């Protein structure tokens, strides 16, 4: 194939810079590049690699934004640390081998919960920590404290939470009822380890008098 004049290959490179997408590169490739010398082929390859990097960056930002929105509004994945919900959920020292759960955020629209739900909430004395416990008392209910057989009323806008593993759970028995506004989500399923995959059921602890 004969070499085209210099100014023609410059015009092609200029128009490649203007469009710069992969599709346009291939359009040019089919009709023009075959008769261009090797140096223009290399320019087309470099343009293709840079636009590929750009499209990867665009896709990751988009994916990140959509992921954050879904995790804030609909469903999120949380790894359990701590033993306060044993045996329903367990942790181990290594984060990878602790239980991983799915939590839904739709309940935060109206803050309507049921007794026995397992919820995620921010610790009242340290907003950076997130706890997972079971909801024992809803706002306005009278509940009996297990140890002292005291009866207390859960104030409006608050709830009483306790862990399934009473011996190793730091919960409302220590820090009192928590405002509902601290709740981050409701745990619905365990998705790891495979032996424990399944729904997390709403459960009332045995030998607890239901509140009224």
């Amino acid at each position, binding site marked *: 194939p004969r070499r085209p004049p210099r100014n023609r290959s410059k015009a092609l490179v200029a128009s490649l810079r203007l469009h710069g997408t992969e599709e346009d590169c291939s359009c040019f490739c089919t009709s023009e590049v075959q008769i261009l010398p090797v140096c223009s082929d290399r320019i087309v390859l470099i343009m293709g690699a840079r636009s590929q990097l750009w499209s990867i960056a665009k896709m990751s930002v988009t994916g990140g934004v959509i992921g954050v929105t879904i995790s804030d509004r609909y469903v999120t994945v949380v790894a359990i640390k701590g033993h306060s919900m044993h045996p329903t959920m367990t942790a181990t020292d290594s984060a990878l081998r602790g239980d991983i759960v799915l939590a839904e955020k739709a309940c935060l629209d109206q*803050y309507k919960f049921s007794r026995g739900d397992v919820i995620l909430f921010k610790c009242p*004395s340290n*907003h950076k920590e997130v706890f997972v416990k079971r909801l024992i008392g809803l706002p306005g209910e009278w509940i009996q404290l297990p140890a002292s057989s005291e009866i207390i009323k859960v104030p409006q806008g608050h709830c009483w939470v306790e862990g399934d593993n009473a011996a190793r759970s730091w919960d409302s028995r220590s820090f009192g009822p928590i405002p509902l506004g*601290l709740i981050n989500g409701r745990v619905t399923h365990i998705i790891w380890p495979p032996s424990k995959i399944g729904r997390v059921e709403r459960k009332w602890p045995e030998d607890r008098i239901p509140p009224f």
Partner: protein
Amino acid sequence: EPSSPSAAAMSRFVRRLAGIPWRQIAGEASSVGLLMAQGLCAVHVVSEHVLGVAFPRGPSMLPALNMAGDVLLTDKVSPRRGWVGPGDVVLLLSPEDPRKIVAKRVLGMEGDEVTYPVDAGNSDATKTVVVPQGHIWVQGDNIYSSNDSRQFGPVPYGLVKGKMSYRIWPPSRIGSIDSKE
């Protein structure tokens, strides 16, 4: 050859339907839909995690905030990083009803001693409390008409959702929200 005029009309209609570029329309609709979804997600991320807009109503923060009609920019980054201190006006979920968002001024952080009027307007009696760990004491500027920590006690810091930083409406009062002790 179609046997009757109605059959001819039917076959013309079917040919017309086949001529419409369904695949192209579906492709364009799904790409527009995807673009709109991306746009909405971007708006959510910015307004929840970076900068939001608030329209506070009510008399509890007079004279700093009007009873209605103010439009404020809320900084969502500062509360997450813990850059909130006494004198800041913050948005928080009400501890009495989590569906309500209230705007109040922070008077004390954890460990601070706060002295507050117990019954403003009727008596001069005051009380002093120490704010527990992880909590803050919030009070409205208008102590005669404000439901705040004097009624519901210190609130956990985790209820704070944003810090009011700048007023953008009405034009006569555009400017940053003063942070006063």
